[in-house]
């Protein structure tokens, strides 16, 4: 899933370094919204703007963890 998310987001946000350990600080509000929209569309999960915290978007791994958590919530 990680590589799938990386490919998806790198294509949409070519300026962003998704290997960064400080990903959130690299993003602007449009980037954040693009991430939320593309992930909710791709995985059919319900994301809120309040999910876009510095912690949830700190690294690509934390984004993957957010998606996995939302998928689990969806199945529950």
């Amino acid at each position: 899933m990680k590589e799938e998310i990386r490919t998806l987001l790198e294509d949409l946000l070519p300026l962003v370094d998704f290997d960064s350990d400080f990903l959130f600080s690299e993003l602007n509000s449009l980037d954040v919204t693009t991430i939320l929209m593309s992930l909710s569309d791709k995985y059919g999960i319900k994301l809120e703007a309040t999910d876009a915290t510095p912690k949830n978007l700190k690294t690509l791994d934390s984004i993957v963890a957010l998606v996995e958590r939302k998928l689990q919530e969806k199945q529950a």
Partner: protein
Amino acid sequence: MMTLEDYLAQDARLYPDKAAAICGAETCSYRELYERVKVRAADFSDRRGQVVLFRASQTIDFLVDYFAIHMAGAVAAPLERDTPVDVYEKLSQKLTSCTIPEGIADVLYTTGTTGHSKGVMISHRTIIADAENLIQGQGFSHELVFIINGPLNHIGSLSKVFPVIILGATLNIIEGMKDINRFFEALDYPAQKMATFFVPANVRILTQFSADKLASYAEKIDFIECGGAPLPHSDMLELCRLLPKTRLYNTYASTETGIISTYNYNDGRCLVGCLGKPMPHSRIIISPEGHISCQGDTLMSGYIGEPELTATVLRNDTVYMADLGSIDDEGMLHIGGRQDDVINVGGYKVAPTEVEDAALLLSGVKDCICISAQHPITGNALKLLVVMPDGEQLNKRKLALHLRERLEFYKVPMLYEQVEAIERTYNGKLNRKYYREQTD
């Protein structure tokens, strides 16, 4: 005439302990703010009559610098905080040879109506006229807490500082809308009336991902101004549904014209493209060809160091816009499109040639054109169509990073596509009309 700094001094006398500005955990009373400005003004005492370039930031320090520069008799020229170093230095050098008319307060850099970055001179009189327009047109009040979420070097956000200071109200400055939790925390501030300014992308983010949360503040949000670019009708209707009692304004404004007209679309009619009646200090004229021009005290004084360019836009105390519009039977302005090549992206105006010139500097880019394309968040976005040498693939990231080193962030396209060739007119010019028609 009182200046903004005179009003600040008055606020410090009348409401010394009232919060003038909040930024995260920092709160600055009117007394503290005025004292900080007086101390800081001493640092600019040798700059009287000169333009002081400085990088904008979402901080109380920015406000202190801004007011202090005025207080020292200098002219404030706030730039995007990420302005590339060479751009900053070129501007700085250019400004040393410029003559500045009497009464100028600010130089704000914009692409604006001409399609190239220019320094728009704003007078102290204009600042007060903008403030009075906003107070009367939108109902700014002493009790209001205004959340600034956009860059303070941009007229959209900077202009809201003016009425707040005149009325002794409160500013709450946040670092953009990236972390929506910070925006909602700002709304939690103990105040009866809150207001803010949004560009269309902000509205889309909130209605798409935080509709219920936004609606929970319906009683508290006094008004929201939307500007920068037209708001899609679906977003206007959604905001009206979420915030039924809030005044929701679409405004006609630009750095060159100042704040001209405003329309509360939460009036049961929600008219698309309507920007309301001219405010007290403004007049709107529509030419026989349908172009909008503006008059009144909110107009710029000209482009700094560009008298010839100024004359193409500002003549006979009138600013001639590239926008098309009409006035209805109620005297309200309705806006059409633009009749030039400038692309409006989320409230920022971009000259495509500037993007293309920067892209062509990258080795391997044979030809390119920067066009407007539809985007689910911003409504539209910059798209760069690129021709590469035979057999070579476009590296989007490399090109985007190349552009980012040379241009302000909002000029870097979000979308890229490799194409075989760029459409040109019979005389070899880029065929922008062809691509506009494709997008429409």
